[in-house]
């Protein structure tokens, strides 16, 4: 369980590390997309870090919505809409939530996933960030009674596995679509991002839980 302050700190940690991941993400997008995913995510999370540094949040909903709006306004592209929608959508049912725990996280992922699916019409198996998000969401229900640090570790692992599985998928949306079978063997860049977000969340929780 994290206080609002710590939760904000967690997303600042996530932001810094997403900025650091620019090159990995760009390389992933170069393989099957247009090579700008890292640039966009770095730009977005740089903006998020700035935004969070200058503002305090009363509840989880406000924090997540603020992250979502910031990502949407600064990344642009598919990733801006998708990750913006994910955080904004995830905020929907957390208005009264004043701390961060595994239940809140599970609600965030469920609502976030639903919003992304509505916005972009992609389904699991289409080789998008959904393929990392959906297994993490499923796992969040399974691990709901574990301590946060273990639960989130398991979720990040599920996301990683989902991301790995995108290597065997043929893209049916986004810029990798026309590649057909040539998209095989490469992970989806957005799925890599989704996994990394959870991984960096876990990193932070692990640090503060020690």
């Amino acid at each position, binding site marked *: 369980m994290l206080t609002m302050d710590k939760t904000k700190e967690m997303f600042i940690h996530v932001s810094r590390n997403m900025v650091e991941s620019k090159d990995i993400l*760009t390389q992933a997008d*170069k393989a*099957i*997309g*247009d*090579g*700008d995913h890292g*640039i*966009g995510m770095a*730009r977005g999370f740089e903006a998020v870090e700035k935004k969070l540094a200058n503002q305090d949040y009363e509840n989880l909903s406000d924090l997540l919505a603020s992250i979502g709006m910031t990502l*949407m*306004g*600064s*990344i*642009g*592209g*598919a*990733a*801006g*809409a*998708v990750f913006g*929608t994910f955080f904004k959508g995830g905020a929907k049912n957390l208005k009264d939530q004043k701390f961060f725990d595994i239940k809140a996280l599970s609600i965030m992922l469920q609502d976030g996933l639903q919003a992304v699916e509505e*916005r*972009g019409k992609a389904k699991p198996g289409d080789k998008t960030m959904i393929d990392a998000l959906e297994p993490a969401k499923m796992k969040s229900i399974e691990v709901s009674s574990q301590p946060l640090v273990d639960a989130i570790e398991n979720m990040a692992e599920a996301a990683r596995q989902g991301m790995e599985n995108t290597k065997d998928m043929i893209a049916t*949306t*986004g*810029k*990798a*679509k*026309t*590649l*057909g079978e*040539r998209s095989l063997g490469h992970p989806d860049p957005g799925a890599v991002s989704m996994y990394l977000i959870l991984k960096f969340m876990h990193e932070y929780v692990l640090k503060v839980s020690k």
Partner: protein
Amino acid sequence: MKTSKKILNDPKNVVSELIEGLSAASHGKLIKIDDVNALIKSKLPSNKVGLLIGGGSGHEPLFPGFIGENMADGAAMGNVFAAPAPDIILAATKRLDQGNGVLYVYGNYAGDNMNFDIASEMALDENINVKTVRVWDDVASAPLDKISERRGIAGDLFVIKIAGAVSSVSADLEEAYRVTAKARDHVRSMGVAVSAGSIPETGEPTFELPDDEIEIGMGLHGEPGVSREKMMSADELVERMMTKIMDDLPFRKGDEVCLLINNLGSTTFMELLIVNRKVRQVLADASVTIYDTVIGSFCTCQEMAGFSITMMKVDDELKKYYDMPANSLAFVKS
């Protein structure tokens, strides 16, 4: 890897700087909207449907070069190869609405679709009617029965030309939408690339292509096409592209078409003319009449070497709008 040399200042500022440069070139006719990367006409003709185009940057002169008389009223511009964020689109939408609503015309990409859709929902919240025509002209990017999954490439120019014409004479959003969607439905394109462009911020080419290979069906972002082949002669290449394009609509004996040979970046005008020579022969053999020919750099992918062929089948209605004079920095019709 050799990174590309470009004439730039801080690569992070390319979009705002290119907007300044374009606004300067317009001699006051085009102005930037405060705080967001969107360019609009300084004087909007009254009682018309607003025409907003846009998309990721890096394809110049597309989109902002097509703002002008009987062309678009404004362009929402994203970062390089990234759709504009909803707040940019919304800001431009508000400025262009004259009470008759705003027509969006843009290329059919997941990012653009989502961002423009979010913006149009926000516009509706502010009582602005929006209709959308997504351009999906690239025959290489999906089969005909999934046409709405195809991406938009150089066909953008013809669709924007028609949209600009109809939206200047009609105050009816439905009518502007109808004619523009009709133009879109009559347009087919296909592109090829022989070498990659690069994103200014990294300087790295967006893909690798062996010295003797060509990418068939290349898109506008350097995202790969449908197949890779050994280099071939211009004539053979054009023949293959034309077969694919003509079979698709299909274009048949007796049809009339507007033709666009578009430079994807660093292909020479010489090559485009040599391509046009063969296109002409293929169309003559098929008894398809060419109503007009446009050749040049309109929809690019930075310094990518390659070109695309676009054809729009025209009837009397489309010809009427096509023939209207147009004046923008990058496309002039007298």
